[in-house]
């Protein structure tokens, strides 16, 4: 099993969710986060005073999938979150040692 984490533009969240549901992903966790990468921050001006906003709002999407699903999920996120503009975000994949569904006690791929 793998944990796939994607940091995406907030307005792409619905597209990503729909793309993942379409390929059979059954659950995900979404967090509003702030950060910067190559895009850097942006500036805002209030009463003539310019402020550099370093941390821009992003959404973090996390989902645990079986090894067999990983490539499809990564591709689906990458294409759904793609806007061809700087700041589209990143996707990374890490191993998951154990996965338990709390209600039934099922483990591993059965709990995905």
């Amino acid at each position, binding site marked *: 099993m793998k944990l796939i984490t994607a940091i995406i533009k907030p307005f792409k969240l619905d597209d990503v969710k729909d793309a993942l549901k379409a390929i059979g992903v059954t659950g995900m966790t979404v967090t509003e986060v702030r950060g910067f990468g190559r895009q850097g921050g942006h500036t805002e*001006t209030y*009463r*003539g005073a310019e402020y550099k*906003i370093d941390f821009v709002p992003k959404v973090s999407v996390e989902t645990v999938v079986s090894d067999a699903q990983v490539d499809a999920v990564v591709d689906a996120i990458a294409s759904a979150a793609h806007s061809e503009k700087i700041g589209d975000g990143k996707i990374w994949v890490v191993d998951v040692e154990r996965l338990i569904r709390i209600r039934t006690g099922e483990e591993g791929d059965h709990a995905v």
Partner: protein
Amino acid sequence: MGLDTGDTAWVLISAALVLFMTPGLALFYGGMVRSKHVLGMLMQNIFAMGIISVLWSAVGYSLAFGGSGRFIGDFSLAFLNGADGITGTIPTMAFVAFQMMFAVITPALITGATADRLKFASYAVLIAAWALLVYFPVARWVWNSNGWIFQMGALDFAGGAAIHINAGIAALAVVLVIGNRIGHGSEPMPPHNLPTTILGTGILWFGWMGFNAGSALAANGVAAQAVVNTHLAAAAGMLGWLIAERKQAGHATTLGAASGAVAGLVAITPCAGFVGGASPLIIGAVAGALCYLALGIKARLKLDDSLDVIAVHLVGGIIGTVLLGLFADTGVNDGGADGLFYGGGVELLVDQVIAAVSVLIYSFVVTYVIAKVIDRTMGLRVDSNDERAGLDQSQHSESAYQA
């Protein structure tokens, strides 16, 4: 003159309208501070409704409108004893109520300059002392028929000098004593909730109808003219600010629209019942553009006038008070005078400048001394940990927004 029920009704309604401006000001300012300080800001404003109202009834009304002194009244009307007659065509008690709401909002204006760093108990002492030693005397000078500025012939319909110059320069004095916010100039401090600020602007604009038109103390043509002038100056102020802002900074902002409207409202305040025709449009537009340009003053002085009380209230108040010397028209109000542009010569203009400068100097000096004394005795400012934690937690043990 006997009691007029129409006049009485209008002044009573105006008192309520002016009262509503203080929570409006709280929201206007509250949206502009960071979220950890928003309750501190709201509290400072609504607390003025508590403490100043009590002071006004106890001694404030008497010091401003009792006795026959030119500089200060006496205690003959303390606790409103003997204030049960008729003033003009309205019950004196209606005048007491209307003027009380002015006394409430004036010290609250200062809080914009000192945002995020005043210790609450010290703030309470500061505005109480300020009302007693600065506001009540200045209200006497300007609005009581015995007052020296009133007798000199300077005009101040609803408080350009008595309220906006007075509070604006006081804000400067307190900032000089209290210093800048931690992180001023190095950390970004953007407004945390501009929709709140816009709501506050709407409430201020609405209440200002009573503030200015109620100052006619009658439901008559002058009051109607004041309503129109007030509204048009706010409108033109918004446009003036936005044009200047867009030219200089590239965008017309919502905060700019709100600030420009308030600048226009401030400037028309002394003029509201004395000018007509295109004058409110000119006064408002000039105030909107100049107040925007005046934002640069604090940067040049390296002074943390956090929410621009100096640029909006002090500069706006001076613009209105001085322009009245040009645009006043007895054709609008025969109880006023003619300004330079209406055949009155420079006499009114000179009186207006004397009034503005006198209030400026008196308020600055006395406010500075009050702030310094409080700072030396109880400390005016929260300690740095409390400031970083935010006034909401450190002063009131509350949070505005639960996660």
